[in-house]
């Protein structure tokens, strides 16, 4: 009995340790895995252009709105923020310097927009955004909130890493000196993109939940009221009174879409549809309610959900350039282009950190008898962009090979008779498929003379070791692990026990 309790306790403890270690690893991967800076660069350029436009529009009525005795009296606004932590540099600008300071801000924002001195100008652009907004609180609307949010995240991450003057100057400098061009990927890019994604989920969720408080969103009249609001509308939509199901469907769909955005958008298959609906909704707001600025800024944030590699290829296609192979290899010619690193004798880890993320389309086939182990390995490899399939029986491997061609077949020998492993190894030896055998000490001893097994490792092993082995097989002995910078030897031991 005591032994049972002890073993149960130890088992639970081990499981808890395993799960918590995996949770930490998942958190790290989710927030800190280095990714290409293209999408953040696009977001910076678009947000910067909207902010620039916003400031230029303020130029038309700067005195009226921002002068100390203007439409938003300075003393009144300051008193409003007395008990608050809000701030604005406009509180300290005398009226005679309004225009000077304003045009200085325009110049800084223009620099931010084109990505010049982005590390500094991104922070300044953020301060400028909230300073303008908090100086004229009565004149604020959704545009200011989203501008503030995007500028904050552009300031947190290296938003000048791509599509920027900074990058252009850097490349020019390095090509002149014939030194390697620094990486375009960064873990802080990932952090910024993740925060934008989460923030968008929060915005839509609360926008949807707040609508549930209103009766008109339940009766379906809400969308009609919006459409029939003459102060908002730019196009007459009263024809919908004759087809009332249009505003009704639009009202209900809006609430459902907003509330469930935070769930659906994480599903990669549904994501394009979810974002397409959102884009349609915001373009509708722009077209019919005249709020193009708000509609557009919301869709700019959608770039955070897009795959940077795909976008780079699209942009390259758009401008008639070849994709930048040094940064983002495509799946088709991945193997032919990837060469082993010229690893220096020392500091190899540092060198590895500069290696760009690799996206892999070819899958790995896992032979593993226990479903939960197979599932855990698949999930882990998927996070590292290595698609994997798992099968349970040796026969399944053979039938799978008839229909597809995996990059590597991994055989987890534990729970399989040695004779079956031997038979499978001999069959696979006559195919061009690369194999990796993870064998117990006993199996390795028994099969050590078998020539059919070219690569093997000891099982149980860690996820990381397995991934390193796979990466080495697929890309060469020293070829990169994309996120080495953030990884530590994992405790995620693969074991069937």
């Amino acid at each position, binding site marked *: 009995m005591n032994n049972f309790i002890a073993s149960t306790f130890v088992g639970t403890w081990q499981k808890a340790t395993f799960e918590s270690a995996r949770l930490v690893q998942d958190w790290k991967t989710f927030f800190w895995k280095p990714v290409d800076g293209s999408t953040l660069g696009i977001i910076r350029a678009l947000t910067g252009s909207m902010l620039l436009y916003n400031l230029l529009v303020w130029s038309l009525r700067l005195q009226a709105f921002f002068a100390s005795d203007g439409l938003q009296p300075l003393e009144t606004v300051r*008193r409003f923020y007395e008990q608050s932590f809000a701030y604005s540099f406009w509180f300290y600008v005398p009226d005679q310097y309004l225009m000077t300071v304003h045009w200085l801000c325009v110049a800084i924002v223009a620099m931010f927009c084109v990505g010049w001195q982005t590390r500094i100008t991104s922070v300044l652009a953020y301060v400028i955004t909230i300073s303008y907004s908090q100086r004229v609180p009565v004149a604020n609307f959704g545009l200011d909130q989203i501008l503030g949010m995007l500028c*904050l995240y552009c300031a947190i991450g290296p938003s000048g890493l791509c599509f920027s003057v900074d990058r252009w100057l850097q490349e020019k400098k390095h090509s002149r000196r014939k030194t390697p061009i620094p990486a375009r990927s960064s873990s802080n890019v990932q952090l910024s993109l993740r925060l934008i994604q989460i923030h968008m989920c929060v915005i839509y969720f609360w926008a949807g939940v707040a*609508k549930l408080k209103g009766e008109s969103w339940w009766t379906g009249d809400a969308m009609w009221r919006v459409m029939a609001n003459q102060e908002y509308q730019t196009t007459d939509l009263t024809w919908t009174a004759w087809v009332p199901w249009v505003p009704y469907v639009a009202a209900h769909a809006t609430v459902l879409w907003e509330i469930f955005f935070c769930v659906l958008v994480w599903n990669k298959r549904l994501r394009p549809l979810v974002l397409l609906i959102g884009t349609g909704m915001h373009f509708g707001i722009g077209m019919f309610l005249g709020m193009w600025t708000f509609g557009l800024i919301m869709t700019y944030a959608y770039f955070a959900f897009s795959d940077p590699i795909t976008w780079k290829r699209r942009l390259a296609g758009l401008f008639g350039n070849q994709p930048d192979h040094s940064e983002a290899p495509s799946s088709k010619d991945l193997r032919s282009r990837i060469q082993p690193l010229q690893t220096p004798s020392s500091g190899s880890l540092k060198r590895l950190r500069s290696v760009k993320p690799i996206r892999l389309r070819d899958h790995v086939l896992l032979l593993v008898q226990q479903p939960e182990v197979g599932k855990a390995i698949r999930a882990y490899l998927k996070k590292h962009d290595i698609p994997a399939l798992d099968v349970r029986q040796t026969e399944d491997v053979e039938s799978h090979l008839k229909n597809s061609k995996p990059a590597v077949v991994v055989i987890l020998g534990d729970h399989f008779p040695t004779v079956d492993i031997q038979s499978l190894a001999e069959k696979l030896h006559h195919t061009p498929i690369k194999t990796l055998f993870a064998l117990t000490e006993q199996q390795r001893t028994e099969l050590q003379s078998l020539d059919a097994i070219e690569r093997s490792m000891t099982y149980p092993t860690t996820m990381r070791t397995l991934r390193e082995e796979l990466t080495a097989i697929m890309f060469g002995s020293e070829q990169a692990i994309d996120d080495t910078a953030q990884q530590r030897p994992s405790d995620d031991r693969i074991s069937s026990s």
Partner: protein
Amino acid sequence: MGVLRKFGFVAANIWVAYHIFCVAIAPVGMPPTSPLLSDVSEFARPYNEFFFLNHGYHYFAPDPGGSTLIQCEVPQQTGRNKRLRFPDVEISPRLLYHRYFMLAENVGAFPPDMQAEIFDAYARHFANKMGSDTITLKAVTHNPSSMAAILQGFELSDPETYSYETLGTWKFRNDGSVIRDAVFDAVAEDHSTARIPFEAAPAVDESVAIELVPIAMEENELVQEEAPSADVGVIVSPEDTTDGRSFSAKGLDHE
């Protein structure tokens, strides 16, 4: 160095978690809310205020209602009142239109004493713009017509869809300061109401004809109203112009 780096990484992750908490909790603190949620959101308030993240994101919620506009009226010696209303669809670009729209729409969400001061500012600004020392402000609510009304042939701009509430009448001295007569003082000091009702409004005769003044005009064009130009769309006959009372008060507006 390794320890420092590790400490920095842990600190960064704690910040990430706190940031997400603050962003997610901010809308919860917006009324109506329970004391519990209010207290929880209070924990994030300083952070959200500092980083301009204290938003409710209640777009068109809970119920989309009518629009609020502000109407400014100034009396003319000829007996024709001049009227200006914002937002005005003539304002361009559209973003500027929305700024004026928010001036009318959002002011009700601010504390009453702040509203009073903002209405003072509106009155001063638009009195100057319209070249008068006396101005009456009205809050105009434009309710959207129902589907049934549209089906019966009514229009969105039908007069019955508008309702008016007089906010007050302001009279300014030459230096731009407000002349507070006894009636005004009695009302203005009562900040407990959302708006300042001022029923007397003797300066504006509602029965007389009204001249619309487009807000889209630049301020300096309005100051030069005595010699209006046709291209700005102001139809003001010479006898309708201001009588040159010295409250054009250029010092009030620096544009």
